[in-house]
């Protein structure tokens, strides 16, 4: 038997009895950041492949999501800071060792690019809105900016490919860099969050697309990503099993512990396996309403982030 207790009394807000330093805004941001990174990645990729006419939603229409998602995500991040007035200190230094510093700088670059990308297509996608916004026509400055972004789409796309991959991986690395939280401390979290982000992005594109060609294409892409994600989750669980005691204990929160239903029910089964099967049926030409798997994937994605952030903070080193 081994029992340890505080005899000096210790009940620090948000620290005891278990850590609750990161709240829902962080989970929400991890979801929105991954989603935005994924959509921008597909937009840039299909643009560079010259398929913007074939897949207009992926390249043009869905690009309305990243600027909104990133703005909301950034607000959520700042909302969860406790020393908000000093937020600018993030941009006073570059800390190579700190994933959060990397993330802050990448966001500072990706967010404006996401606005530029949307801006370069708004005339095409929203002709009615454009007609209403005649006032802005008088601003020569905006016209020249628009011309600039339209002319330089190729370079924006080339920049977006690596930047969005870093952003997608960063949402996972942010957690996995903490070895004090055994549930987070595994190297597979980066690729897993990236894959999940790309998968939710494909789902969002399916929801917005109007042509069956685009729906089927992104159904197939999503199916591939779901398969990879399932494989990565299996590896993650195997990694915990083979890990030290603290990781085995951490894993028990997901396997048999209080997060089992959320993780295996909502993330693995309803968020990956069921939509995977539905999308597979769609590939074999069965009639499947494709919005169902798409919505399931999006819900699974957001639940996954909440589970990982909440459960991770319950895990710790016992000494």
């Amino acid at each position, binding site marked *: 038997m081994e029992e*340890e207790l*505080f005899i000096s009394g210790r009940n620090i807000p948000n620290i005891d009895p278990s850590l609750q330093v990161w709240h829902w805004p962080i989970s929400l941001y991890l979801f929105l950041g991954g989603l935005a990174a994924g959509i921008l990645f597909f937009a840039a990729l299909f643009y560079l492949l010259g398929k913007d006419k074939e897949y207009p939603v992926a390249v043009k229409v869905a690009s309305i999501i990243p600027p909104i998602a990133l703005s909301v995500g950034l607000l959520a991040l700042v909302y969860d800071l406790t020393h908000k007035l000093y937020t600018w200190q993030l941009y006073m230094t570059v800390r190579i060792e700190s994933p959060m510093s990397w993330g802050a700088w990448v966001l500072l670059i990706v967010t404006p690019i996401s606005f530029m990308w949307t801006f370069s297509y708004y005339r095409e996608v929203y002709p009615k809105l454009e007609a209403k916004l005649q006032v802005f026509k008088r601003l020569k400055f905006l016209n020249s900016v628009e011309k600039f972004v339209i002319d330089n789409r190729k370079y924006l796309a080339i920049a977006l490919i690596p930047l969005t991959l870093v952003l997608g991986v960063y949402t996972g690395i942010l957690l996995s*860099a903490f070895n004090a939280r055994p549930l987070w401390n595994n190297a597979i979290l980066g690729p897993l969050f990236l894959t999940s982000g790309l998968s939710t992005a494909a789902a969002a594109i399916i929801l917005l697309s109007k042509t069956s060609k685009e729906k089927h294409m992104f159904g197939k892409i999503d199916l591939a990503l779901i398969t990879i994600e399932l494989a990565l989750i299996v590896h993650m669980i195997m990694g915990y099993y083979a890990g030290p005691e603290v990781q085995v204990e951490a894993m028990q929160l997901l396997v048999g512990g209080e997060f089992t239903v959320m993780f295996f029910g909502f993330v693995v089964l309803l968020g990956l396996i069921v939509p995977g099967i539905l999308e597979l049926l769609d590939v074999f030409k069965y009639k499947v309403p494709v919005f169902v798997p798409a919505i399931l994937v999006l819900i699974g994605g957001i639940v996954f982030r909440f589970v990982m952030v909440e459960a991770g903070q319950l895990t710790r080193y016992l000494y």
Partner: protein
Amino acid sequence: MVIDTLKCVGCSDCVVACQTENDVPIGYCRDWVTESVSGTYPSLDLELKSERCNHCDNAPCVRCCPTGASHIVEGGIVLVTANECIGCGACIESCPYDARYQHPDGYIDKCTFCHHRLKKGQLPACVSVCPTKCMYFGDLDDPNSEVSQLLKSRKHKTLAPEAGTKPNVYYLT
């Protein structure tokens, strides 16, 4: 810092001294005392430990800090510069000892080994008040210092060495 678990009686004087010296807000603490019991009745073993920030050589809080507010000063003490701290909580998440907390004013706060007292040549508040003199403070890099000598002659351990942080608070057992 070296703490003799065999001398500690768990009076919590170190905790109160720290709170008073450092104006720690009510409900918070930079150090705390734990009691761990191991074994099976009747052969039980009780250990009392005064715990705090371990001022690690490989401090994860300093590594993950996005602004550089968490830093190691000359001599190895880990400090937080309040007006560089954005309160993101990354350092709290990264600390295997849960030694940091969010100050009600927003920034992250923790044990400083009473850096302001050390500069005046005084001992940390917790060390100076300990009624059983179970705490020792000194330079671990100096082989002739009291703390180095204690570590040479006595059995000792650190907390969660498997976390790889290279902690600098040693417990004599």
